[in-house]
């Protein structure tokens, strides 16, 4: 995973969000426009250029107690405004493992 510091050098190529893991239980969360964290991707703040992304990342990183390891992740925004993960890694983080879990199969 690219660290926030390294990501500051990255130019985003499309709509993105800031994601992290919630500190107390580790679950995947997204930074919202209300400056909080949500487990729901649809509530994530969408950024569309590098300056916005850097600003959102900096604000997210400052909330060190709420979530761990924030980074910028690509998303796809449909014509209807629906937000989907932008790559397989983020898809897996959102929906869980692509395999059956032993306790459930």
């Amino acid at each position, binding site marked *: 995973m690219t660290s926030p510091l390294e990501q500051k050098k990255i130019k985003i190529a499309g709509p993105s969000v800031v994601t992290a*893991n919630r500190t*107390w239980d*580790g679950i995947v969360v997204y930074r919202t426009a209300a400056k909080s964290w949500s487990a729901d991707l649809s509530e994530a703040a969408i950024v569309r250029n590098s300056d916005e992304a850097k600003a959102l990342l900096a604000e997210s990183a400052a909330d060190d107690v709420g979530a761990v390891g924030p980074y910028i992740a690509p998303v796809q925004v449909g014509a209807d405004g629906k937000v989907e993960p932008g790559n*397989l890694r983020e898809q897996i983080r959102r929906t869980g493992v*692509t395999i059956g879990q032993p*306790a459930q*199969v």
Partner: protein
Amino acid sequence: MYAYDEIDRTLVNERVSEFRDQVKRRLSGELTEDEFKMLRLQNGVYLQLHAYMFRVAIPYGTLATKQLRALAHVARKYDRGYGHFTTRQNIQFNWIKLAELPDALEDLSKVGIHAMQTSGNNMRNVTSDQWAGVAPGEIEDPRIWSELIRQHTTLHPEFSFLPRKFKIAITASDHDRAAIKIHDIGLRLIKNEKGETGFEVLVGGGLGRTPFIAKTIKHFVHGRDILSYIEAILRVYNQYGRRDNIYKARIKILVHELGIEKFSREVEEEWQHIRNSSLQIDDEVIEDIRSRFTYPAYEKLPHMPDELRQAAADPDFEAWRKNSVAPHKVQGYSIVTISLKPIGKPPGDATAEQMDALADLADKYSFGEIRVGHEQNLALPHVAKRDLPALWKALDKLDLATPNVNLITDIIACPGLDYCSLANARSIPIAQELTRRFANHELANLIGRLHINISGCINACGHHHVGHIGILGVEKNGEEVYQITIGGRADESAALGNLIGPGVKFDEVADVVEDIVEAYLALRERPEELFMDTVKRLGVEPFKERVYATR
């Protein structure tokens, strides 16, 4: 089994209290993540894709039934009902809450289990042969020496802030089941011409981005000197090992760059300073450790009991026995490997129910002892041959009797992109598809011994470099692509595999493996010629031609 003393128990308990306080301070914001990260890593806590992952040590792969039940309890109470046995005699839990970790650690500490040094740049869990103490022909039980090193290196200040993680493995048999040649230090127990116990010491092995097979640095180090010799190696590594570049920080890079001769001279010089110090091990120390390993009161049993003779008529039992049951050093007993590779399931995973039930079976049939091997399987080390049929039936009901040990579906696979924050591609779905593809046990037996190892990134947790067929997942233009090697092995003749050509897509991997296997079956000179023998005789080319002829 090893009986821990009061010092061990105090150490483990105090560590839990310490970590509880650290977690409390982290959750209150008193500690930042930057401050906390090293503390959690030193207690085996990673942050993975979905949640925190908690890695627990199983020193030299030996578990008592109460310990396995405690692991089942952690899986059930604090996680999602299962655990993942790794390639380094650890178990990982994938979905644990940071807030509950101190409680989980405390529950484990009651049975002498901890997570110290299962992460971070320190001495990791000392691993050994999962058949230690029961394998016919071994020099002596390598766990005695593993335990000595474990005690010496646990929380040792000089080994707590190394340039990178450091792994030691020990074997005492001609056939290396501990993969010592892919460890930072590999130790092979031997006897010298005077009959004294000592070690051949190998150094600089490891996989990852830059794989190396370990080189022999010393042909014989007496047992009494092994701690000082290891410490001399560590001191040289601590002094010269690179800390400026994570990719060049492992001791294998130092050994490669200095050359084994120069590295050996540096170690020898350091050793002479400390060899006759308090690091020299008195016989009484070894005897004390030896006395803390207890062995079952074996009965005098026939080599071929009636129960086994009768069960031999059942082809399903025989299919299992052939691959899962190995000779024991005591007549009338066997070592039974429990396959954690059922067809279509993630390699190395076990549910809490399976762990509990296996603990019951170990109590009933294996003197309360279970072993964990680096191939992500378990073993019962002391099973009376007369009990094999009953054990097999019980294992079968638990989905733990898949007759595929050492066959093509006995796949080693890292968690890959389904769990791991470092991974670039998935490993487990590839393993699942391959097990379905080769689910026919007659075909698998026809193919014979063939190890497939899969990693989802270049860090090589799935040991792909040393798979007979190795599969490495990488990411290319947003797609998962898999590079295939053949000819690797992790035993006493350890070797790195050779790449056969360009990477292939996710959906093509199983077809490619099928092509390789078909090529082998067509090319082998006789049924007894194993895959590795054919590769050794013919090289990569015929396999490459077969795979890429139509791609």
